C-alpha cells in the first residue's frame, strides 16, 4: 500500500463493481473502520452499487435518509453512463454530490467524511458529503478572553471556521482559496482575503510559499507558519495567530490574509506588524481612552520586561554613580553577604521564574495551591533570608516577569532579549545595554512580513499611520487602512 493519496493519481474507476470494491479493500486492507455496503435497487435489477465510507466520520442518519433510502427506490435509467448523472441529479437527497473518476480524488473525499457510491457499469463514481464527525463546539478561546465583546472561538473544522468568518463578512468580496498541504495528511488549507483590499502580490506570495511546503503532515497552523514566515530565526513573530473570528474579520478588513488550517482552531494572519504584538482583542470593544492606556502600558511593559534586569546589573556592577545615593546604599547593603555576582543572581532568578511560569501553565489545578506556596515562600522568603539571592534582584526579576506577562504575544522574544541584554550588561555595563537595545530596535525595523515592513507605520510616521500603534484612536479618525493595502480609504462609498 502506498503512503500517500497522490500515489493513486493515475488510477481510475474501472466500472466493474467487484474490481473496484476489491481495489478499495486492498487500499484499506489494514483499516477496520472502512465500511462497504452493497445496495441493489428494488425496482431495477440491473442497478447494482456499493456504498463505501469511513465509520465515525459520516452522519449515519444523513447517510440512511439521503443516500441509502433514495437509492433503494431507484428505477432503471436509459443507459449505464446515465446512471451516475441520474442518481446525482434525481435520486439523492444530499446537498453536495460530486462525480469523480480518479482514485486519488475519491480517496481524499472518503478520508474527509464523504461517502463513495460505486456503480456497476459506470466509470464515474459519486461522492456525497455526509460528514458527521463530532466537533468541540464553539467556545471562547482560553488565551484570548475579553471583558467585553464576542466570545466565539474557532474550532478544529475548517469549514465551520469559514462559516463563522462568512457570517462576519457578508460580502462577495471574501475569497477563499483552497490548497492541500502535507503528503500524507493532505490537510486542507484555506487562504482567505478580501479581493479589493488585499495586495494581489502578497496573496500570490502567500500561495507560492504554502505550495512550496514539503512535509509529510500538517497538524497545526504553526507547521505552516514556520515554513512561510519571514525572519526564520528571529525571536519576533512575523505571522499573527488567533482563535477569534472577530479578530480575523478585523484583520481581513485591513487588507490582511488569513490562513485557515483544517484540524486546528488557530488561524494565521499575514502580514503581521510589530504594533500588533501590543494589540489586545478588546482594544476595539472598549472606549478608545481606556484602550489606549492599556496599549501604552503594554509598550512600556515590553521595555521594562527586557530592560530592567539589564539596567539593574549595569548600574549595580558598573555605574553605581548613576544610582541615587540612598538607593545605592540600600542596594549595596541588601546585596551584602550574597555570594554571587548580580549577573549570576539574575540568571538564577530568571530561570526560576521561567520554571515557575511553565509549571504553573502545565500543572494540574489541584497542585496550584502547593506551587504558589513553594514559589512564594521558598523563592521569595527563604532564599532571600539565606542570602542566596538579594531582595532588589528579586524585585527586579518579579517586575520584569510580570511586565512580560502583559504581552503574551512576545513571550519568546522577551525571554531571549532579556537574557541577551543581561549578558551584554554584565559584560559591558550601560555600553553593552545601549548596543543591545539599539541592535534590537534595528533588527525589529529590518524585519518584514510577507515583504511588508514590520514597522510600516514608521515609513511616513504621520497621524494616520500611528493612529493604531502606541494608542488607539477613536473610530471616527480611522480614515485610512495600513499602507500595505490596495485600497487605503476606509470610509466612503464603495470602500
Amino acid at each position, binding site marked *: 500500500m502506498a503512503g500517500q493519496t497522490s500515489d493513486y493519481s493515475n488510477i481510475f474507476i474501472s466500472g466493474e463493481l467487484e474490481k473496484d470494491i476489491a481495489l478499495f479493500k486492498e487500499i484499506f486492507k489494514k483499516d477496520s473502520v472502512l465500511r462497504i455496503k452493497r445496495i441493489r435497487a428494488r425496482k431495477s435489477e440491473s442497478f447494482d452499487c456499493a456504498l463505501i465510507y469511513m465509520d465515525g466520520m459520516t452522519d449515519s442518519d444523513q447517510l440512511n435518509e439521503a443516500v441509502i433510502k433514495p437509492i433503494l427506490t431507484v428505477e432503471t435509467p436509459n443507459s449505464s453512463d446515465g446512471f451516475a448523472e441520474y442518481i446525482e441529479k434525481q435520486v439523492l437527497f444530499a446537498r453536495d454530490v460530486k462525480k469523480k473518476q480518479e482514485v486519488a480524488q475519491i480517496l481524499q473525499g472518503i478520508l474527509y467524511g464523504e461517502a463513495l457510491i460505486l456503480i456497476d457499469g459506470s466509470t464515474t463514481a459519486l461522492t456525497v458529503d455526509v460528514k458527521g464527525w463530532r466537533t468541540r463546539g464553539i467556545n471562547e478561546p482560553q488565551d484570548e478572553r475579553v471583558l467585553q465583546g464576542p466570545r466565539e472561538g474557532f474550532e478544529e473544522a475548517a469549514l465551520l471556521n469559514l462559516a463563522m468568518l462568512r457570517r462576519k463578512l457578508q460580502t462577495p468580496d471574501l475569497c477563499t482559496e483552497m490548497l492541500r498541504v502535507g503528503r500524507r495528511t493532505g490537510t486542507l488549507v484555506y487562504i482567505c482575503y478580501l479581493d479589493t483590499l488585499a495586495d494581489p502580490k502578497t496573496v500570490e506570495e502567500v500561495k507560492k510559499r504554502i505550495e512550496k511546503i514539503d512535509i509529510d503532515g500538517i497538524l497545526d497552523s504553526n507547521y505552516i507558519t514556520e515554513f512561510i514566515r519571514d525572519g526564520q530565526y528571529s525571536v519576533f513573530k512575523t505571522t499573527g495567530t488567533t482563535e477569534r473570528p472577530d479578530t480575523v474579520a478585523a484583520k481581513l478588513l485591513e487588507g490582511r490574509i488569513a490562513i485557515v488550517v483544517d484540524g486546528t482552531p488557530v488561524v494565521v494572519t499575514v502580514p503581521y506588524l510589530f504594533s500588533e504584538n501590543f494589540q489586545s482583542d478588546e482594544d476595539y470593544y472598549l472606549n478608545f481612552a481606556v484602550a489606549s492606556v492599556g496599549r501604552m502600558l503594554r509598550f512600556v511593559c515590553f521595555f521594562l520586561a527586557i530592560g530592567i534586569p539589564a539596567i539593574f546589573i549595569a548600574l*549595580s*556592577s*558598573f555605574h*553605581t*554613580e548613576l544610582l541615587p*545615593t*540612598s538607593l*545605592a*546604599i540600600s542596594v*549595596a*547593603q541588601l*546585596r*551584602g*553577604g550574597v*555570594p*554571587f*555576582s*548580580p*549577573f*549570576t543572581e539574575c540568571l538564577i532568578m530568571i530561570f526560576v521564574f521561567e520554571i515557575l511560569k511553565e509549571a504553573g501553565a502545565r500543572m494540574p489545578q489541584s497542585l496550584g495551591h502547593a506551587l504558589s506556596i513553594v514559589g512564594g515562600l521558598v523563592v521569595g522568603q527563604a532564599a532571600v533570608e539565606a542570602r542566596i539571592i538579594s531582595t532588589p534582584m528579586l524585585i527586579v526579576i518579579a517586575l520584569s516577569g510580570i511586565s512580560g506577562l502583559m504581552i503574551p504575544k512576545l513571550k519568546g522574544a522577551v525571554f531571549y532579549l532579556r537574557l541577551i541584554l543581561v549578558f551584554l550588561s*554584565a*559584560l*559591558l555595563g550601560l555600553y553593552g545595554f545601549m548596543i543591545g537595545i539599539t541592535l534590537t530596535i534595528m533588527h525589529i525595523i529590518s524585519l518584514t512580513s510577507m515583504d511588508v515592513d514590520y514597522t510600516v507605520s514608521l515609513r511616513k510616521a504621520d497621524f494616520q499611520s500611528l493612529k493604531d500603534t502606541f494608542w488607539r484612536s477613536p473610530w471616527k479618525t480611522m480614515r485610512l487602512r495600513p499602507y500595505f493595502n490596495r485600497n487605503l480609504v476606509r470610509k466612503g462609498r464603495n470602500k
Partner: protein
Amino acid sequence: MKKLIFILPLFVFLLSGCSLSDAVSGKSEEYLISAMGFDKSGQGIEISVEAVSVNTEDTEDDKRLIIFDGSGNTVKQAFSNAEKKSTQAFDLSHCGIIAVGEGLTLKDFAEICEYCYNRDEINLSVYFVACENAKEMLKKEPQSSVAVGYDLMSMLECQSRLSGREYKNRFYEIEAQILKKDNKYDIPFFGDGYFSDKKLW
C-alpha cells in the same frame, strides 16, 4: 555557519577582554564616601574621609560610618595614606560634601580642587563647605541621614530655600572661579550647627 564564524571570535574576545567573573561585582565591596574633609597638618594636608559601610558584618555596634584619615605633603599622598587604612576601595561618586578646614591656604585649596577635578568620579555638583576642623565635623553623629555629609547637603539646601541665600559653592562654580583666577569664593562656613557667610580667605 558564516554568522557563527563571525560571531564566535567576537564572543571569545569579549569574554576574555571583560570580566564575567564574580570580581565584576566589586562595586558592592567598596566604601561609599559621603564626605571628604581637608585640614592643615603641619606643612602638609590631612584628609578625612567619611565612609558609609554597607556590609553590616564589617561594623561594630550597628555603626555604619567610618572615618578614615591620612596625612601627606600633597593631597594625593594624604589620600593614598587614608586608603591604605581601609580594607576596601573608596567609591567617591556619591561624595556630597567637601569640607575645608581653617588653616588651609589658597594654594592648598587650589591643590585640593585640582586633585578633586582629576578624580573623575567626583561629581561637579559636589558642595564645598568651610569649617574650623573638617575631621571633627565629620566625626559628629548624623541627625537625619545616613551620614554627616548628606546631613550637611540637606541642611545647605534647606537653609538656602528658607533664607533665599544661594551660595555659589558647587564644585563647578568653584572651579570656574579658579580658572578666572578670582579668589573670591562663596563658600559657606559651618559652625555652631548652621551655615554662615564667614569667609576662610
